[in-house]
């Protein structure tokens, strides 16, 4: 998937042409309970921590990221121009000297990610919530970009 890296979404056009394919693939996976269509393709797109899901509904955009074990004060969220940045540091405190590890899979470290938003996002109206290790940013849409019902006379 070179193309995906070259045109690093979402800077180039908001509607990711691959998103629909990805969604279909996941749907197939779900239906067939296996790896359908997947020839060693990474599911991840930007390759930058944290992985995010972006969704929209009528009035808002939502950005969600899984950040288990992070407290609100370890996160720095900034909105500037047309993008939102999420950065911070995940810390895993030491457990003392007298412990013997059997598994050590969780990782600590710094991260920083910028997510571009489409024209219609109102960055004056960003809310952030952290619940059960999932960060949710709620971004309002500007009036002009909200869908309007057109009545027929």
């Amino acid at each position: 998937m070179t193309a995906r890296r070259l045109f690093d979404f979402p800077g180039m056009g908001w509607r990711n042409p691959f998103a629909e394919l990805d969604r279909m693939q996941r749907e197939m996976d779900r239906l067939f309970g296996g790896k359908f269509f997947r020839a060693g393709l990474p599911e991840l797109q930007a390759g930058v921590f944290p992985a995010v899901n972006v969704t929209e509904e009528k009035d808002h955009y939502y950005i969600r990221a899984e950040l288990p074990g992070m407290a609100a004060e370890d996160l720095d969220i900034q909105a500037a121009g047309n993008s939102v940045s999420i950065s911070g540091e995940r810390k895993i405190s030491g457990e003392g000297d007298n412990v013997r590890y059997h598994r050590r899979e969780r990782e600590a470290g710094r991260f920083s990610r910028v997510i571009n938003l489409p024209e219609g996002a109102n960055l004056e109206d960003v809310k952030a919530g952290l619940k059960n290790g999932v960060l949710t940013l709620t971004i309002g849409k500007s009036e002009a970009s909200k869908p309007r019902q057109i009545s027929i006379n």
Partner: protein
Amino acid sequence: MSESKELQVREKQALDSPAEQTRPGLVFKPLVDIFETDKEIVVLADMPGVSPESLDVDLREDILTLTAEASSGRGEGEQDILSEFATGKFYRQFTLSEVIDQSKIEAKLDNGVLRLVLPKVEKAAPRKIQINS
């Protein structure tokens, strides 16, 4: 642990169903740290999106099973624009080599991280066994 490194994205590990599922959905393997001291075994598991009510910890015959249902947090009518991770269940099993004092197990879920403390059974003091003739 003093210097901090840049975190890399790791794809969540999807499991082929641990057992036959009655409800469809993806199953992931949570990342864990497991360490042991003289007195206890501690399991730390990353389970984002899991609330205490949806987490189930089971220990029977030395097999520890973690099962949880993560909520995606999605509301109705939301459409995907970019989707880099999926949510579903978490499932993982471990075999413990030590005898655990079941009555003193402590589990805490904080910001999507489970901390499970499994105290070892204290070694029984040697005692003299009377032989009856």
